[in-house]
């Protein structure tokens, strides 16, 4: 937004002179430059080192993985933008898979109905988070941690620890469906990202979410419905967690409570932060957050392709993240976009 020219007649339209150099500079000055560049570099580097990495089959695998962390990251990012945090997304995604399977198999509901009910339940959980955070002023960390614990427990209690088998084939058809060579889950991720981008950048609701996270007092005094915008973010986060849960059981063709999502919330938070979202709220754009999720996926899949010992993978992942963040700080300093007078 700060790269565009403004509508004042006195200003010469700088956009007339868009040479390659100015475009490059604009890109470098944008907060997303670091993470996008990192994606490209990591992809090329691993692709050269491990030829199987760039094969269609592996790209499809990555596409499906990406749907999981990417969609969670977008929901998480919405909450982070309001200045909150949602620790429940991973466990909630796990529970959502169990719920969808349970409604489908044990209650005998058709798969689409089971999915819709699951989405509604998770949306309601998000609403609950939002209400508790805005009405009772409970720190989001605390209330979503409660949900995290309860969700994991519920998933085990519902299934008594055993996987729910013979779920409707519709689940796996959704997860394995391809348009051309592109898996449907990857497209759902792209669609989610586009919708989220559109809401955040092009609608008043989205801009007001930034205002709420940036300075809640300013937003309140300006007459922005702070509570409603905050609740919106938590509901979206809950619903997106449910989407991920449904995609996951489709992929496995079984609802296994031991698979359910623990640790995913941290990956989602990491993706958002690597992509430029500030945990203090009000800062971060969808392009960066999507790129952050892509980067994490490129790295974790790349380590498999490079046959890095599973014992060392986490160290490498952490190191790569550290370098990415460091490079971004150096870039920000160079272009001074974050300095405060």
């Amino acid at each position, binding site marked *: *937004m*700060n*790269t*565009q*020219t*403004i*509508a*004042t007649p*006195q*200003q010469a339209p700088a956009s007339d002179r868009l040479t390659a150099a100015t475009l490059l500079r604009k890109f470098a000055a944008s907060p997303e430059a670091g993470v996008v560049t990192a994606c490209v570099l990591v992809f090329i580097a691993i692709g050269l080192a491990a030829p199987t990495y760039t094969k269609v089959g592996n790209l499809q695998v990555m596409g499906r993985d990406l749907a999981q962390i990417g969609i969670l990251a977008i929901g998480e990012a919405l909450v982070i933008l309001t200045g909150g945090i949602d620790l429940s997304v991973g466990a909630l995604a796990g529970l959502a898979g169990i719920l969808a399977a349970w409604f489908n198999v044990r209650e005998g509901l058709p798969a689409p109905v089971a999915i819709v009910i699951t989405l509604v339940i998770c949306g309601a959980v998000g609403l609950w988070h939002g209400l508790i955070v805005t009405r009772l002023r409970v720190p989001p960390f605390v209330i979503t941690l409660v949900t995290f614990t309860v969700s994991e427990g519920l998933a085990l209690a519902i299934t008594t620890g055993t996987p729910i088998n013979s779920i409707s084939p519709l689940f796996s058809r959704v997860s394995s469906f391809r348009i051309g060579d592109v898996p449907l889950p990857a497209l759902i991720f792209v669609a989610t990202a586009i919708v989220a981008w559109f809401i955040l*950048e*092009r*609608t*008043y*609701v*989205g*801009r*007001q979410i*930034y*205002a709420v*996270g*940036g*300075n809640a*007092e*300013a*937003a*309140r*005094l*300006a*007459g*922005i*419905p702070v509570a409603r915008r905050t609740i919106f973010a938590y509901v979206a986060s809950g619903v997106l967690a449910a989407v991920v849960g449904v995609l996951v059981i489709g992929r496995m063709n079984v609802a296994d409570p031991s698979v359910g999502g623990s640790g995913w919330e941290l990956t989602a938070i990491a993706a958002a932060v690597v992509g430029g979202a500030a945990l203090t709220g*009000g*800062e971060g754009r969808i392009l960066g957050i999507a790129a952050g999720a892509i980067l994490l996926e490129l790295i974790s899949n790349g380590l498999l392709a490079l046959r890095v010992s599973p014992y060392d993978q986490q160290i490498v992942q952490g190191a790569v993240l550290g370098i990415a963040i460091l490079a971004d700080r150096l870039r920000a300093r160079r272009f001074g*976009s974050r*300095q*405060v*007078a």
Partner: protein
Amino acid sequence: MTVPVEAHSRAVSARLWGVHKSYGQVRVLDIPHLEIRAGEVTGVVGENGAGKSTLIGTLSGSVLPEGGEIEIGGVPLTLGSTESAAHHGVGLVSQEFPLVGQLSVAENMLLGRRPRASRRRVLVDRRAQRAEAAAMLEEVGLSPIEIPVTRQVRSLPVPTRQMLEIAKAWGREPTLLILDEPTSSLGPVEAQMVLGLARELADRGGAVLFIGHRLDEVRAVSDRIIVLRNGSLVADLQPEEATEARLIREMVGSELARAKPKEKLVGARPLFRAESLTAEGLGPVDIDLHAGEVLGVAGLMGSGRSRLIHTVAGAQPATGGRMSLAGVPYSPHGPADGTAAGIVLIPEDRKQQSLVLFAPIRSNVTVSILRRLSVRGVLTPKRERAAAKRITANVNVRMQSIDQPIGSLSGGNQQRAIFGRAFASEPKLLLLDEPTRGVDVGAKAEIYELIDRAAKDGMGVLVASSELEELLWICHRIAVMNHGRIVDIVEREDATKERIMKAAAGTESRLPGTSATRRTSRMES
């Protein structure tokens, strides 16, 4: 209780009946009846804790009174709702600059509403947003060229943000515009702009509530001045009756004792010296400060006042020149080097830069001497409490207990606590940036006393302030800055407002390279 006596033909913009509010046992606001009329600037003065903030809060919806009614333009407000207040035309410019730093100027200007020219209800119309924001800036005399509406607000300096805040409220065409100490962060020129703006809105038929702590400003701009004391309306004055002495008497309940003339500094030893000191937007500057001396730094907004203070403190890197403290070379790489050398900065923004508001007074005042209080690195609560009591008593902080959050104190008391903390670390040089910003008259006098005391104890004091009266009152000498340089240095006895203003506002620097080293002062009639 004074009620306006003369019959007014003007329309009433805001009317309050029986509005009252208590916190615990303390009744902080009790207004049986108050009318604010269109076409007038109504000045509001009162000490901190007199109920000014609560009055503003009830009008703007951020405070829910326990009883009473408020009408804006004849329509009753839903009390305690900022949405309702904003909807009925209450515009508030607060001291806190409620802007969203991460968003652009344009988005901040139109925060919470849509551009008038836009037909879109859900989608953002950025073109219309920018155009309207630029128009709003021009409306208040700001240039959209100098302040591009696409700039991120947090990259702008504090005074510019204050101007934006006013432009924002003004652009909503409020029925009642509340200006809460709008000039406290501004230099004289910008302050004049704001006063002019308040006048203009009133002349166009708007109602302006002007809350001020600088009495001369309030008197200059107001058609009527109301005085609050202990939550009650104690006076409702016409401008001709509202002399400074009368206002102060009404505010504090008694006449303020006049300060004695300052004693001359004799035989003071040099303490701090800066030679051709430069930093971003500063210098070269020469300063020579003696122990026991209070040296003021005057200048317009952006003249380098704060930069000078920050560079000496080590909070802004120096790019050239030399400094020495008590004969020892001093080249700080950060504020930690400054405090280690015995230089303590009391920054401009209490809430952001000095205090942990929700933490108890105790930990706020001892934070700078924790190492000294600890026994082999371990802090005992007993020693900390004793030190906190000593520190707060030393500077006369009025409080119930050292365990109450420091944010619950009035601004003046908070500032005294900060002074206490600074004294506790026994500095050689005390740096003050706007020491009385947002502090009421009574508390101001006490802070001046503290500054006096610091000097008498042998500290050197370098104080930057946008209030000339203040500098004239407390300083031995005043250095006047203009475009990052010291353009004049005035001895106390030669100092007049006119001379300082002339030097501060001069476009060409009158004495290029003038240094603040002690010398026979240049007389000028």
